[in-house]
């Protein structure tokens, strides 16, 4: 926990983005998490991604539940809208908010407790409904706020700080998401900014539910020897299956160059996600193959990372429900609430 606030002094050569903002303008207040927490590193990656995507902070809604991870929206994008919901209930709030205003960028930040224990049902339905949002699951395998008990994502055999081994099998959010029909499934590591930032950008651009499961070591309760979610273990056993490069629409022409054996997937807005398979023949658009590969690596004790699966032209909640494009707040009141006369007429229609 840091008490000294980050000073306001800025690098004199600080670059600005298309909106004239610097990366510092995308920061939030000083983190109160433990020094060295993986979540802080993810926060910094989020700051960088929003800055580079030229998204105006006030056009963003950040949502979270309860837990260490769920505290972090305070630490980025101070100017954004925010909602800190009940434990595990962030997906419902996000769904509601998104239904009412589909024009904002939605980022939900949750943890393994919030999403895989108390909020597992909500998490599944958000995926099923394909709510257009980026869902960051900051996964450290322990309940940090209550002193480090195993969470639902703890691996079999991983050791707690005092030595006891976990016996129960983990819920793996990535493979679960694949089976539930999620349209964007990625996994990364808080200590690999180079991989994480393009994934966040692609997830924000993806129309539909984008899950990024991020191994984020708990420096206080789960960074010891014997833990399978420590910095050292994740570095040793992380296995990048595809390299991902996000190319925003506006830059497409400048960066046209030879990318070797890369494949490109065009997103809804025309941006491109490029893949270079690290594992031979890995195809991130093939759900079944992705699932099989994930399971194979898991059996070997490896953690598959990268953009594991993407279905770029999936239909999100608004398309599925055929709702209006404009935010409800911009729909004229008479149209939004046409009065009892119109209701009576509608009812008479069904009599």
């Amino acid at each position: 926990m840091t008490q000294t606030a980050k000073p306001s002094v800025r690098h004199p050569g600080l670059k600005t983005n298309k909106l004239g903002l610097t990366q510092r303008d995308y920061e939030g207040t000083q983190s109160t998490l433990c020094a060295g927490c993986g979540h802080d590193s993810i926060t910094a990656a989020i700051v960088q991604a929003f800055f580079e995507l030229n998204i105006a902070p006030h056009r963003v809604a950040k949502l979270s539940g309860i837990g260490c991870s769920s505290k972090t929206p305070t630490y980025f994008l101070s100017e954004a809208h925010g909602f800190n919901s009940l434990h595990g209930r962030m997906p419902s709030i996000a769904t509601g908010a998104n239904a009412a205003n589909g024009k904002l960028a939605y980022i939900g930040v949750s943890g393994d407790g919030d999403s895989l224990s108390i909020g597992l049902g909500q998490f599944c339905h958000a995926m099923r409904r394909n709510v257009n949002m980026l869902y960051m699951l900051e996964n450290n395998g322990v309940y940090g706020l209550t002193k480090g008990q195993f969470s639902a994502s703890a691996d079999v055999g991983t050791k707690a700080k005092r030595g006891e081994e976990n016996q129960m099998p983990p819920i793996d959010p990535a493979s679960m998401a694949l089976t539930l029909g999620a349209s964007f499934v990625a996994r990364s590591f808080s200590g690999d900014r180079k991989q994480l930032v393009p994934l966040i950008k692609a997830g924000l651009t993806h129309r539909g539910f984008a899950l990024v499961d991020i191994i984020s070591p708990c420096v206080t309760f789960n960074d010891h020897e014997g833990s399978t979610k420590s910095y050292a273990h994740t570095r040793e056993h992380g296995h990048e299956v595809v390299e991902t490069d996000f190319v925003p629409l506006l830059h497409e022409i400048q960066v046209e160059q030879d990318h070797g054996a890369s494949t490109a997937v065009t997103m809804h807005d025309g941006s491109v996600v490029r893949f270079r398979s690290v594992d031979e023949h890995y195809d991130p658009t093939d759900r079944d193959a992705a699932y099989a590969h994930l399971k194979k690596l898991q059996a070997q004790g490896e953690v598959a990372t990268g953009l594991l699966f993407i279905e770029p032209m999936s239909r999100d909640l608004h398309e599925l429900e055929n709702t209006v494009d404009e935010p409800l707040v911009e729909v004229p009141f008479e149209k939004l609430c046409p009065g009892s006369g119109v209701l009576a007429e509608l009812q008479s229609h069904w009599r």
Partner: protein
Amino acid sequence: MQPTDVSNPDYYHKVVDCQWGCPAHTPVPEYIRLIGQGRFTESYMLNRESNVFPGVLGRTCDRPCEPVCRRVRVEGEPVAICRLKRVTSDLKGDVTDLLPKIPEEKNGKRVALIGAGPASLTVANDLMPLGYECVLFERMDRPGGLMRTNIPSFRLPGGVLDEEINMILDMGVEVHYSHPIDSLGKLLDEDGFDAVFIGTGAPKGKELRIPGRDEGGANIHIGIDWLESVHFEHTDSIGERVLIIGVGNTAMDCCRTSKRIGGKDVRVVARKSRPYFKASAWELDDAEEELVQIVENHSPSRFIIEDGRLVGMEFDVVEWAPDESGRLVSTKLDSTVIPCDDVILAIGQDNAFPWIERDIGIEFNEWEMPIVDRTTFQTTRDGVFIGGDAAWGPENIIWAVEHGHQAAISIHAFCEQESLTDRLPYGMNLVSQKMGLHSWSYGSAYDESRRSQMSHVDLVERFKALEVEVELGFDAEQTAVEVARCLNCDIQTDFTANLCIECDACIDVCPVYCLTMTENRPEDELRLNLTAPAENIDQDLYVSADLPQTARVMVKDEDLCVHCGLCAERCPTAAWDMQKFDLLIPYAGKPTWTKTPETELTTSS
């Protein structure tokens, strides 16, 4: 890049830009912190150890520390280091008991010091505590050299100068005033000194040989001679219209002195334009505040004499442009006459050694300057040393002080029959400043205040007498602001690679993007592949040993670090620590492995 060797004192020393830039390597951030704690006496004594004349330099130093201050790179304006030095002098208590103790039993060595300026006085200051007998010869009837006669008392009150000179003379220096040395050969042969130090300055003002010089002689003055004559009250007036030729700091003193003894329309005339002026920016400001007019791009062509009296000067109006080789050359555009009653020439100073025989083993070069070793300050004759302006021409007081320190080391080594070229090494101490979970022993917060402006005596009041000191010094509030503005560059970010778990916390929290973890590469590539590109190549990159988990390296660009300590505060494993760097400077008879009473007093807290 090779991992940085932080065990070499130079690396961390260079991070303390002010200390590195100071010829005497005064530990600026440390003395500023002492001011902040109200420990003015300790701060004064810490200054005195390296720069010997804090009260004088706090008013007159050329401030090589300020342009290089990190604050300039961060927000544009340096900490007012020089004027904080004056604060220590203004507010100090009695220092008598803190001055070096002089042994009653002497070591039997006698050293002659020629010229009682800052260089010779520093040699005496360093040698007296070692038991030397120092014999000082001064051609005038009072000590101080140019500090006394060339710096007007409205900038440097005589009392301040007396106090600091007396601290040295009272050590028991044998002083012979009004005793010019007219033959070095005689001194060497007859008086049996073990060593001789020459600190006679650069006493000869440059001439301007253009038509009319001799005819108008009565009203054409050489700047430094004229200032000296004003100091000794041989001159107490000047004509109403005065031209100063030249635009260095002597010119500034001449024009401001003229304004005080009768000059009404005083102009400083420069051959070049403002960016090429030699005067310090603040001295130009002070002159202009006193309504001195600065005339640019005027090259003198002749003095105009009517009826045997100077009535004006003619100038070529020129413009400057670089030729093919890049050298600036002037083109005459026009000529103009500026009427005047007096002219003061302030176009530079030369050395003059008519009193050194050319056959006593001291070799001179083609410019009639004695050949002096840059490290030992020894001439080609063993046991004869030269420092200050006398060595290589005009510099500043702080350089003369440093020359004095180095010459004292050489003289001591010479008298002890040790090698002069094996210089005493610098040392350093590094001490962690961590006081608790979130507290450091220094003010780590960044202060956004802008530089404090020095208050001046109002224009009417200051012209009433020559001795009225113009600068009022900082008040308590200004002092507090300036102390807080110091970035504590001597509190170093010290990194231990094998403790790092590569969590990125330090990188994310750094407000100025100093830090990067990356694959190691050659420096020029590394500089472009950092969190923020390291474009200032004058500032070093710190490169760690390979990190344990990924074999990447931690790189720190020293350029803009504000020493806020957040990297260390956010580090879960204390791989980063904030450690106070204390440069141990060797002095004559005091190698760095022995602490002096002064440093113990100030650094043991």
